[in-house]
């Protein structure tokens, strides 16, 4: 199905693609540039593109004012921890739905997904009260639990679609070969689903990393993640654009790098099932 494309069309598409890519990248680029400007340059009425007085003082100020590394550590613990916890619950759940479905399986899947459609504010008060009573407010493990629960529907859905692609014969062969359920999952299902599990893991780490609503409302100082860290730079002290940019850059850098190096897995994860 090779299509002959004329050179002008090719050039046109290339320019359009670059334009769209730059448009999407512009805010990140601007943040990057602003982070290295002085405050006065950042808010200058005629903005400069490249920093005129290249400086690292914003980063120093940010680290000094609110401990970046502590927040980054919390982010890592919460995003990786909640994803692993989610996988531990999600793999058996998706196994059951993919290989031992009942009449209600489809309904349960839809119901799980529907919980993602509800605005989070809708359950803010009950969850806040539960967290207060269980003394989970502003704790890393509390945040990990809530993040696991938020992302569990997506984890199960993704694993379910991957598992559906695995021929059930192979699992039955394992059963005939004397594998109990645990061995069937660990020695046969999981190794065959490694690509799917990897992209589920990546996507959910990113989702948990970027989550802002619950991290900001359920934490104050101790358990704050990087999203809470950025938000602390936004309003109360007037406009400190350069520092805010530096903080944002620091917050997104780890996940940006992770995403960059795992593009292939991510694209496969997001489009899986669209084309066989």
């Amino acid at each position, binding site marked *: 199905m090779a299509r002959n494309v004329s050179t002008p069309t090719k050039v046109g598409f290339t320019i359009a693609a670059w334009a769209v890519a730059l448009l999407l990248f512009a805010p990140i680029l601007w943040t990057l540039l602003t982070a290295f400007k002085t405050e006065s340059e950042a808010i200058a009425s005629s903005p400069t593109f490249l920093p005129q007085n290249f400086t690292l003082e914003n980063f120093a100020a940010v680290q000094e004012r609110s401990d970046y590394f502590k927040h980054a550590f919390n982010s890592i613990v919460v995003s990786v921890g909640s994803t692993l916890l989610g996988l531990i619950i999600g793999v058996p759940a998706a196994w059951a739905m993919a290989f031992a479905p009942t009449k209600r399986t489809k309904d349960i899947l839809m119901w799980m997904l529907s919980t993602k459609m509800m605005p989070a504010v809708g359950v803010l008060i009950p969850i806040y009260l539960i967290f207060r009573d269980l003394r989970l407010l502003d704790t890393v493990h509390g945040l990990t639990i809530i993040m696991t629960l938020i992302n569990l529907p997506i984890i199960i859905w993704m694993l379910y679609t991957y598992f559906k692609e695995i*021929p059930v*014969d*192979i699992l*039955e*062969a*394992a*059963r*005939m*070969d*004397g*594998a*109990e359920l645990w*061995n069937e999952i660990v*020695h*046969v299902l999981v*190794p*065959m689903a490694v690509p799917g599990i990897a992209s589920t893991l990546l996507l959910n780490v990113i989702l948990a990393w970027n989550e802002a609503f619950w991290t900001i409302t359920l934490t104050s100082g101790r358990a704050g993640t990087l999203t809470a860290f950025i938000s602390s730079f936004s309003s109360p002290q007037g406009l400190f654009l350069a520092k805010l940019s530096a903080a944002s850059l620091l917050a997104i850098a780890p996940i940006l790098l992770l995403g960059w190096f795992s593009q292939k897995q991510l694209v496969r994860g997001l489009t899986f099932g669209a084309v066989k």
Partner: protein
Amino acid sequence: MGSISLEHVKKSFGEVQIIPDITLDIKDGEFVVFVGPSGCGKSTLLRLIAGLEDTSGGTILLDGEDMTKAPPARRGLAMVFQSYALYPHMSVRDNIAFPLKMAKAPKEVIDQKVEYAARTLNLGSYLDRRPRALSGGQRQRVAIGRAIVREPKAFLFDEPLSNLDAALRVNMRLEITELHQQLKTTMIYVTHDQVEAMTMADRIVVLNAGNVEQFGSPLELYKKPANRFVAGFIGSPKMNFVDGQEAAKHNAHSIGVRPEHFALNRTATPGVWKGKVTVAELLGSDTFLHVQVEGLGLMTIRADGDETYTHGDDVYLTPDATRIYRFDAAGKAI
């Protein structure tokens, strides 16, 4: 040991009844083939024995022990699937060793048994390959190897040759038969191909709509079919059936004559069936004639390969009177 008894086994999927009620006794060391048209429940029956499906009623005994509720892993049976169902992420060696690892066998025992299976099945030089680097026949051998090492009470084969090409199928058929003679383990083999059934089985179970139509040796089924269904299913080409007046002459609702049980004549003979050849299939050894018989319909005749009938020839057919099968209105053999 490996005797298998089914007592009033039933299976329904929701409202749909697949197996109404089956009772069967399979002796230790027997090669039994389940044969029947697609959808007759033969694979379901095998999966019930394997434990991959739960029964809706009845009892399954393995060596006299009630295994109706036991999970597949505990039944001590091995299964070979149509799709081979090899573990794609493991080498051939690991595939064959998997059941032994699950049984927590010591490493020396595993190596020794894998070696033996590989030798038996000519897989020695492929042990370190992955399944995707093997041909269909080799994959099926690995699947059989994986079954052998368990030393199961019985082997279950679910249409294992359907994915292979015709020549390979004949080879594998022989290999499996030889394997049975060598191991003397009970084997249950599911197929829709009656030639496979006839050539491999000690005894054949003919299934239709979830019911056992007949259970007997291949020749018993061929010579003494219990009913019209078995008569039509066993034998290739199929038996010819005649209803109405011609059947009434033999005091039957319908009669059947196998293609090989006719005498052919080119000249008019009184009192025999007259017809015209529509198609002559020349196989070399045999010639299959499709004959439009006046008043009786299309029939298939097996003639000698030297016969030179062609389209449009007149032919006079004399059925062998001693080999006419008679059936009553319900299709039962009289």
